[in-house]
């Protein structure tokens, strides 16, 4: 009786196991969203309010553009593109990988155990274990605003691509900072703040920043490669710029994943809390 299932996982080929891994991730994400949908009214209000919330900031820009036709080289159209990209990247990453943003809490309270005893990738298991309903509103808002800013097929495809790279960057950035919790306690507020910083900058044109600050926006935090560079590429196509964005997303992910696995060796499974000093 015991023999039927045995050994299957061990002998599956690499592509098979990758397909299975993907299937588990997608199932997780699907179940997360189903869980949020149990209360349909809350689910829909959350989404709608987030769309309204984001839209209300356009008031601010309408007022500002009354003072001047362009701000930092941006007109209302580019601002919409910028806002749209920021919102959709943030939205996508919070729909798929919301757990990354609360990683420190999981690490400190030893909540990774459940993922460590399963025969699948730990990081992917953790990442896909929750979702954020209002993020659906963010993503929807991003797509709406981007279409409104002047619809072109090519630009829209680029927008979708940059939504993905942006989501990868913000997720990787949060993962990188969150993983520091393996070494340092009390990182959760700091990581949160840094993600805020990224987003705060991402909704203003880069043209208003000068010199050192601009450099920091590209190298210290991923804001530059997440939204500024993509907006430039969308308004004035440039293949090299596009490849740089993709490369940056890849490099940041590799760094984040490396740090996570390094830290995982130090994972204490909540035992530190219970240990008697």
């Amino acid at each position, binding site marked *: *009786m*015991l023999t*039927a*299932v*045995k050994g*299957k*996982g*061990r002998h*599956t080929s690499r592509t*098979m*196991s990758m397909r*299975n891994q993907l*299937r*588990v991730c997608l*199932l997780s994400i699907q*179940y997360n969203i*189903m*869980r949020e949908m*149990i209360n349909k009214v809350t689910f829909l209000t959350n989404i709608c309010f987030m769309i309204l919330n984001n839209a209300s900031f356009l008031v601010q820009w309408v007022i500002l553009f009354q003072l001047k036709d362009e701000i930092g080289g941006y007109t209302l159209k580019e601002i919409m593109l910028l806002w749209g990209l920021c919102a959709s990247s943030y939205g996508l990453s919070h729909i798929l990988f919301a757990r990354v943003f609360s990683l420190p809490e999981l690490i400190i309270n030893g909540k*990774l*155990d*459940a993922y*460590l*005893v*399963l*025969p*699948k*990738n730990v990081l992917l298991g953790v990442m896909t274990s929750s979702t954020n309903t209002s993020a659906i509103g963010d993503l929807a808002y991003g797509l709406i605003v981007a279409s409104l800013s002047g619809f072109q097929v090519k630009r829209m495809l680029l927008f979708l691509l940059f939504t993905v790279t942006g989501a990868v960057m913000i997720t990787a950035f949060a993962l990188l900072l969150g993983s520091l919790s393996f070494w340092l306690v009390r990182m959760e507020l700091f990581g949160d703040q840094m993600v805020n910083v990224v987003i705060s900058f991402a909704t203003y044109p880069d043209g208003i920043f000068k010199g050192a600050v601009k450099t920091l926006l590209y190298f210290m935090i991923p804001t530059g490669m997440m939204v500024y560079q993509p907006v430039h590429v969308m308004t004035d196509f440039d293949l090299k710029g596009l490849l740089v964005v993709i490369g940056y997303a890849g490099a940041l992910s590799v760094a984040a994943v490396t740090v996570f696995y390094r830290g995982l*060796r*130090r*994972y*204490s*499974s909540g*035992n*530190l809390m*219970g*240990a*008697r*000093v």
Partner: protein
Amino acid sequence: MKVIEVENLSKIFRVKRKEKGMRGSIKAIFKPKMKEIKAVDGVSFTVEEGEMLAFIGPNGAGKSTTIKMLTGILYPDGGNVKVLGIDPTKRRKQLAYEIGTVFGQKEQLWTHLTPYDNFRFFGAIYDIADGEIEKRIEELSDTFVLSDFINTPVRNLSLGQRIRCEIAASLIHKPKVLFLDEPTIGLDPVVKENIRSLIQQMNREFHTTIFLTSHDTGDIEKLCKRVIIVNSGQIVLDDSMAHLKFSDASLEDIIMEIYRSR
């Protein structure tokens, strides 16, 4: 055949220590004093296939830390571990296909889904083919008498029903070793008894090796033929249940005596 081999296993936690008062707080920022706690300190034992072993000790003795090193959750700081001949730190995923875990206080099921959907999900995690998983769910449903609520969302189940589902879910891939960390915590006597006989049944029918930690002497007495007692990270007793119960005193009293004497 030896299923678990542990040799000189140890795990050290480093904990920051702060001196009293404001001065201590400031000092701690610049020059934190670390204190090392040996959670597990040179533990060695082996477990044979099909054995039912109780691994017990007072709170903070190092039970959970040991179980977590055996299942690949924690990295040991020293010593060797082999479970089914596999090193948990090096081939965690491969080991995961072969073992099952139930941590009494932690839930692995999705509460908004039915047990059936949950089993399907775990089936996907363990790469079990669709046809096969149906068969397996039916088996588990029979063994654990789940048919009445297999299509009710887990959040609407009673604690006892839920634990039954938790255990069933951890058996979906027919593990050779089952790690149970306080499986009966918070259950009423009837459900406890029910869970115990299920565990016994599994051991009899599938020859599953059972590694159990519990504070409940009932669990231990009913299920296990061998007991390992740990205290302060070290094994203080490794003996058969029959030997342990040499006198008329209750198991609870005997264990308490041993806890106190170390």
